[in-house]
C-alpha cells in the first residue's frame, strides 16, 4: 500500500519559502506514520512538522503519493535515490534536485530549476516546467545521467551544460535550450527558442519544427538516422511519443557550435524556414 499525504488547508503566511526535501521516498521509508508526521519541513526559518501540513495515510513501502498543490514547496523529491514519488498537483522550484534514482512524477507544473544537478533517476512532469530545467548545481556540470520528460513546455535555458542523459520536452522550449551542452540528448517536440545549442561541445539536440540554428552551426545535409528509432520507441513507452514516423524520417544535421569544437549536432526534422 502506498503512503498518501494530503495537503491540509493552508495555515501559514503566504510567501514564505518552504523547503520540502523531506518529501522523498528515501526519507519516508521504514518509519511509521507518527514519525513521518514529526519530520521537519522548513517554512521560512522555522522547522514545522510534516504532520501539520499534510494528513498521512497508508504505509511507506517506497511508493509515496502527495495530493494537493505544492507550487510553494521547493526541493520536493530532492536527493531521491529510489522508490516513486507521485505529486498530484504542481511543485515549486528545484523539484528532484540532486536525485540519483527512483521516479519523481509531477502531474502538474514544475517550478524553476526542476531536476537540477540530477545524477540519475526519472523526473516526469505532466504539465510544463519553468526556467532552467535540468540546471547544473553551482560550479558543476548539468544533468549527468538520468531522464527528464516534460509533457508541456519548458522555460529558458533548459538542459544548460547537460553532460549525460536525456531531456525530452513535449511542447515548446524557451531561448537557450541546450546551451553549453557537453553531451547527452535533448528532444524538443514543439518550437525551440533562439540560440539553441549555443556553445555546445558534443551531444544531440533533436527538433521537430522548422528552426534556424545559430550561424556557428554548419549543415551536414539531410538523411535518416536509424539510432533515433531507439529513442522514439523508448519515449513512446515512457508516455511521450514523438511525431508519427520520426524514427524513419529524414533530418537535416547541423554540427556545431563551431566556436566550441563543433562536435555537437542539431537534427531538424522539418526543412529550415
Amino acid at each position, binding site marked *: 500500500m502506498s503512503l498518501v499525504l494530503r495537503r491540509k488547508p493552508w495555515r501559514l503566511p503566504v510567501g514564505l519559502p518552504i523547503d520540502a526535501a523531506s518529501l522523498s521516498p528515501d526519507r519516508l521509508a521504514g518509519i511509521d506514520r507518527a514519525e513521518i508526521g514529526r519530520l521537519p519541513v522548513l517554512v521560512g526559518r522555522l522547522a514545522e512538522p510534516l504532520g501539520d501540513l499534510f494528513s498521512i495515510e497508508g504505509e511507506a513501502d517506497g511508493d509515496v503519493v502527495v495530493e494537493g498543490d505544492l507550487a510553494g514547496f521547493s526541493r520536493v523529491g530532492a536527493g531521491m535515490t529510489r522508490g516513486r514519488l507521485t505529486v498530484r498537483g504542481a511543485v515549486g522550484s528545484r523539484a528532484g534536485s540532486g536525485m540519483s534514482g527512483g521516479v519523481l512524477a509531477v502531474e502538474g507544473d514544475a517550478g524553476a530549476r526542476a531536476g537540477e544537478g540530477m545524477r540519475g533517476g*526519472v523526473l516526469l512532469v505532466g504539465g510544463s516546467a519553468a526556467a532552467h530545467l535540468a540546471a547544473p548545481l553551482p560550479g558543476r556540470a548539468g544533468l549527468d545521467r538520468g531522464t527528464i520528460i516534460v509533457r508541456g513546455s519548458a522555460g529558458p535555458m533548459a538542459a544548460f551544460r547537460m553532460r549525460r542523459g536525456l531531456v525530452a520536452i513535449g511542447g515548446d522550449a524557451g531561448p537557450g535550450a541546450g546551451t553549453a551542452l557537453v553531451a547527452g540528448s535533448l528532444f524538443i517536440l514543439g518550437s525551440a527558442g533562439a540560440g539553441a545549442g549555443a556553445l555546445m561541445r558534443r551531444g544531440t539536440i533533436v527538433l521537430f519544427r522548422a528552426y534556424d540554428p545559430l550561424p556557428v552551426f554548419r549543415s551536414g545535409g539531410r538523411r535518416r538516422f536509424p539510432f533515433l528509432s531507439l529513442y522514439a520507441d523508448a519515449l513512446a513507452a515512457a508516455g511521450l511519443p514523438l511525431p508519427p514516423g520520426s524514427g524513419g524520417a529524414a533530418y537535416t544535421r547541423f554540427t556545431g557550435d563551431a566556436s566550441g569544437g563543433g562536435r555537437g549536432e542539431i537534427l531538424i526534422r522539418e526543412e529550415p524556414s
Partner: protein
Amino acid sequence: MRIEGTFIEETYAEAFALRAARLVITADEERLARTAATAMTGFAASIIACGCEAGLEGPGPAATPDGRPGVRVLAFARDAAVLQDQLVRRVGQCVMTAGTASCFDDLPSAESVRLGSMLRFFGDGLQTSKVIEPSLALAGGETVRPRRVWRIPVMDGEFVIDDRCGIVRAVAGGNFLILGTSPRATLAAAERSVEAIRSIPGVILPFPGGIVRSGSKVGSKYRALPASTNSPYCPTLRGQVATALPDEVDSVLEIVIDGLTREDVGAAMAAGIRAACGPGVARISAGNYGGRLGKHLFPLRPLLDPAAGPAGGDPAAAGPGGR
C-alpha cells in the same frame, strides 16, 4: 520405431556446450540486411577450422531496434574470447561494410562481450555513442531496453552498433543422419528437413544449405588430423572397410543443428527427422562419440515419441554413428 516407413535407430546424437550470441542485422531493405548477414556467416560451418559456427536464424524478428527490416544471426564459439574475436572480425568486415546496415544485440544476458566498443575505433575519433539509460527504461517500462549504441560515420551515413553483445551457454552439434536408398531421395529428404528446421526459432544449420555430406569420425591414420571421413557411412567403401550401412542404403547426409538451448535443438531435431522420413529413406541415425565428448545427448526415439523413453541418453546403446 518407424515413421512413414523409415526406421528410427535406437541411438543418440551427441552435442557440445558452446557460447552463443544472437544479433539482429537491419538495413533499409530486408535483402540488404540478408546480404550482410549471409556474408557475416560465411565460412562459419565448424569451429574446428572456421573459428565459429554461424548462420541465419529462420524466423525473423517481429520488430527491430531501429524499426527497419532485419534478420537474426546466431554465432557459436568455444568461449567468450573467441566469440568476441569472431564477432568483431565478421561484423567489422561484413556488416559495417554492407550498405545501410546496422547491427544490434538480440540476446540480453548477464554475460557479454565487446562489439561496438571495439569497432568504434574505425570512427577515428569522430564516432559518437548514444545511451538509452536505465532511467529511461524505468520510465518506459519493460519494453525499453537499456543499451549503449555507437554511431560510426561511414560513407553512406552512419553504422549503428550495440556497444556490447550478450552471450549465453548454448548447445552445438545436435545432428541426425539420413540414410537413403538413392542420392536423389536422400538429398530431397535432407532439404525437407532443412525447410522444417528453418521454421524453428533459436537454431541454425551452420553447414552449406544446412546439409553435411562429409560427416567425420574421430581420428585419422594421419597423426596430424583429429578427424577424418566417416568411412563406415561412405557407400563407396562398402567391402573395403567395415560398413554401418544396410544393403539398401546408397547415400547418407547429415543435418547439424546449433541452438540456444537444449530444448531448441531437440525441437529442431524432431521437426527435421519427421520431415525427412518417407519413401526413399531407409533409416535415421545420429552421430555420437560414445557419450565421451559431448555434454548433451539426444536419444532419437524419445525425441520423436516422448512416451518411448527418458530424454537422457544411454551411451551403451549407441549405434555406430560418428561425426
